[in-house]
């Protein structure tokens, strides 16, 4: 039989384990973990910007296409006050080529044209998004942007790129992302361009408060 002292210690250990587990799970849900930096080619704006946005996006998602336009407008309006980092969250169960598109966009980024390639992917998403066989658009966009396609194709199959994408997805899963686009604006979640625009109303105050 367990003596009273051991029973008290066991109870205390149980309480510590229970409370810490709940605290960590809540911290995950409220996005309090460290933010993995996105690669430089997927990041726009200075590191010291008072408004930091992380966007989980899927190139085949129409709402992400719409949001991309809004984000571009915000970058133009707020300039150095804003930093936007893109994270891939391809919804592969409904968009079979999203993961490939994300890999090719990253590889275009490594050749200095992430933004341009992303814009082509978004503009033409209905052409490649639901294709039955591997879409030729990925190569066609690369050729149009004068990118080195054989290098891009090899890059998209490389373990580094695949691991980077899987980590983005795992990070999104952990933060409870289940729809795209999902934004984290200074840690606060916004799902869809509407909620992002809603949060943008506070940007002026944040930028004013950040001024020395």
């Amino acid at each position: 039989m367990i003596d009273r002292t051991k029973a008290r210690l066991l109870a205390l250990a149980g309480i510590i384990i229970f409370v810490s587990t709940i605290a960590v799970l809540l911290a995950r849900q409220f996005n309090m973990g460290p933010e993995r930096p996105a690669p430089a080619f997927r990041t726009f704006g200075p590191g010291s910007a008072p408004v930091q946005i992380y966007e989980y996006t899927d190139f085949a998602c129409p709402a992400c296409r719409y949001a991309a336009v809004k984000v571009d407008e915000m970058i133009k309006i707020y300039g150095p006050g804003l930093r936007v980092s893109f994270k891939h969250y391809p919804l592969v169960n409904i968009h079979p080529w999203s993961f490939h598109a994300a890999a090719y966009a990253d590889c275009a980024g490594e050749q200095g044209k992430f933004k341009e390639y992303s814009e082509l992917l978004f503009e033409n998403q209905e052409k490649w998004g639901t294709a039955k066989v591997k879409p030729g658009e990925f190569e066609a966009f690369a050729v149009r942007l004068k990118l080195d396609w054989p290098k891009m194709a090899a890059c998209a199959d490389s373990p580094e790129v695949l691991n980077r994408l899987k980590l983005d997805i795992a990070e999104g899963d952990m933060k409870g992302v289940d729809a795209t686009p999902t934004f984290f604006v200074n840690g606060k979640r916004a799902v869809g361009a509407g909620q992002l625009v809603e949060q943008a109303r506070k940007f002026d105050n944040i930028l004013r408060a950040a001024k020395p």
Partner: protein
Amino acid sequence: MNEKTRDILGLLARLALGGLFIYSGLVKALSPAEEFGFAIEGYKVLNAELSLWAAYAVPWLELYAGLLLAAGVFTRCNALFIGAALLGFEALLGQAWLRGLPITSCGCFGSGGGNSIGREFAQNLVFLALAWVSWKYGRAWSADRAVETP
């Protein structure tokens, strides 16, 4: 060394090592397990699937052990557990060092960079010493002692 000094040393060692394990566990538990899984895979001891399972479990074990040690709950058992874990980490680092594996991130404190293997190995020896001091003198001002008091 008088008893008071030993007690203070034991408490400091417990808090330092416990705090370190809390931090290490927390940083990893708040990051995707896949990230730590890739780091474990780099040691080429476990395959990808087992590395991922280890990455799911280890952060929580570190967090619980750190909290219990800092609070002084089952102090000696926890100090022993942490000491054994550190020996395990040393074995992993040692074999990677001997095999000349290109470890870029040891995975010790999440993805936030890391020291060279040699430095991590030396650092763990210091932590092992702290585990020993916690095991030997760590029961002062502990929950163990508090519940024993009638």
